[in-house]
């Protein structure tokens, strides 16, 4: 149930491998802290790999939006990778699919940064 994250660098892009649930409480906090930590260290090209995220609630959606806008406001870019069907459906019905740059291939996601 716990949200876990791991980060790795590929060609100057930080990939954040997330697993578990991004929900109100610990999951949202972990995501928020991770993104803020990356930005504070100058890592402004961020890809959230959500392949192993099987559940997001409205608070988790809000945290994704916050991560996106915080990164953008600091001159960076945050993209999403490998959405599960549940998460994809949620982004569709909330119209956030039009906001996020969503990728389904890691290499393409990395290359897409200018």
């Amino acid at each position, binding site marked *: 149930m716990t949200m876990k994250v791991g980060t790795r660098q590929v060609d100057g892009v930080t990939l954040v491998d997330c697993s578990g649930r991004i*929900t*109100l409480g610990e999951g949202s906090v972990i995501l928020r802290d991770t993104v803020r930590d990356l930005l504070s260290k100058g890592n402004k090209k961020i890809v959230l790999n959500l392949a192993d995220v099987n559940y997001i609630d409205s608070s988790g959606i809000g945290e994704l939006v916050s991560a996106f806008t915080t990164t953008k406001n600091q001159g960076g870019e945050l993209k999403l990778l490998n959405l599960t069907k549940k998460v994809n459906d949620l982004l569709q019905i*909330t119209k956030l699919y*039009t906001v996020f740059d969503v990728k389904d291939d890691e290499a393409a996601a990395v290359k897409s940064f200018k």
Partner: protein
Amino acid sequence: MAMTDQRVSYTLDSSLETIDSCEEKATRVAADLGFGDDEVMQISMAVREGAVNAVLHGNNYASDKKVTLAFERSGDELVITIRDQGKGMDLSKIPNPLAPENLLKTSGRGIFLMRSFMDVVEIRPSSTGTELKLIKHVHGPTAGGKEASQ
């Protein structure tokens, strides 16, 4: 939980644990009633969002305020009621989360998700708390999965 008596209710603290507990109970009830996997997820997520509203926005985590959760099988409907003891939600202050100017807001999607996932959502605010009623048809025309965008 077995719904042999057609109605089961719980009185719960205003805590994060209550939110998870409400979701787990809803998952179990929905599965026991024979809903499909997608509908079970929809029901459990709607209940989770309702519980979040009750614990956070209603009771504001107050230790002396309770959340009540009830499941009732009524005919062909699963009726779920969540009550809090807060000041009552002002529905007029809830913006449309799909409006372009609100897309990047970090909150305000809970009720929208409930309405997307359930057949009926009724919210009755009062000075002594808010009552939320969520209804899903057990074997209705939408049993195969309601289009979330409707």
